[in-house]
């Protein structure tokens, strides 16, 4: 969160420090003069003002080292919500998947996602060769079907998507797929790309 000594908040605190603390010390010095000229109460005040100066330094140190709260927890939650929401609003019904709305491309894509999910794979966003999406999905399906099972990409032209969903996923180890092989193409994928 940046340098705590140089933030905008810190400069306000520095300003307060260099005004308040010398002010307290000056007032203490003034009370010392008054005490020496015979005002008994000023003996006490000439001790009190330096204590205020010390407390000012302590407060400055404490506020510098404090992390100010960002969320304003004092406001009730309702006020923080978007104006698009209303408290009396009926919750919308859960989305139901309507297969009649599926275009062939969408169905293919969903099958591709199912195949990925069955194999524990994650969707890759990279498309380095700029392939049309359906070609890319087909290749992915084939790669899932053939490549992961052990046979390599000589089957690139053959496999229909249905086999990929069933066959390819079973051979994948489910655990290793989560983070390591999501973005970077694997070593067996490189010559397909080049």
């Amino acid at each position, binding site marked *: *969160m940046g340098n*705590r000594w140089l933030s905008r*908040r810190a400069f*306000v*605190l520095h300003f*307060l420090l260099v005004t308040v603390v010398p002010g307290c010390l000056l007032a203490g010095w003034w009370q010392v003069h008054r005490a020496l000229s015979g005002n008994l*109460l000023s003996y*006490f*005040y000439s001790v*009190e003002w330096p*204590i*205020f100066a010390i*407390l000012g330094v*302590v*407060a400055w*140190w*404490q*506020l510098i*080292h*404090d*992390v*100010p*709260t960002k*969320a304003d*927890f*004092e406001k009730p939650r309702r006020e923080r919500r978007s104006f698009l929401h209303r408290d009396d609003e009926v919750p919308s019904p859960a989305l139901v998947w309507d297969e009649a709305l599926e275009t062939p491309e969408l169905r293919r894509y969903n099958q591709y996602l199912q195949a990925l999910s069955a194999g524990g794979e994650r969707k890759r966003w990279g498309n380095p060769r700029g392939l049309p999406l359906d070609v890319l999905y087909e290749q992915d399906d084939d790669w899932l079907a053939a490549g992961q099972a052990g046979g390599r990409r000589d089957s690139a032209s053959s496999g229909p998507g249905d086999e990929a969903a069933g066959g390819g996923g079973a051979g994948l180890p489910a655990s290793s797929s989560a983070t390591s092989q999501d973005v970077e193409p694997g070593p067996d994928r490189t010559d397909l790309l080049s």
Partner: protein
Amino acid sequence: MNGLLKSARRLRGTAGALARYRVMAFIVGTGLALLCFVGIPLQVIGGNKWPWTAVVAIVGPIHGIFYIVYLVACLDLAGRARFRTVQLLGMVCSGLVPGLAFYMERKVTERVRKLLAMGPDAPPGPAATIWTVLSGRTRRDAD
């Protein structure tokens, strides 16, 4: 009042700091009101002569000592309850303007009780309070 003192002894953490602050705010507010509304008028009426300055001479230093304790309690509470600088300044100034201490005490109590009621959802605890300053250790120091 007695109950407040008892809870100040018993409670620790933010709730204890709030109780200590409330006790001190009550004392300081009363003392300052006594000084400003009784002591100073008497001093002015009597022309700064001895029997008339008695209230100022007695209440003044006592109030001064309690004000220091009040400031320490304010710093402690402000560190624990994540007060902003402006809010801490308001707490400090409420020891200087007569009557403000009582109002400020209500506002501060309201805020800290809200924070305490949030439980684990509350903003994270203090990076520094006056106790960590004086004992030379830093809690939850980020960098």
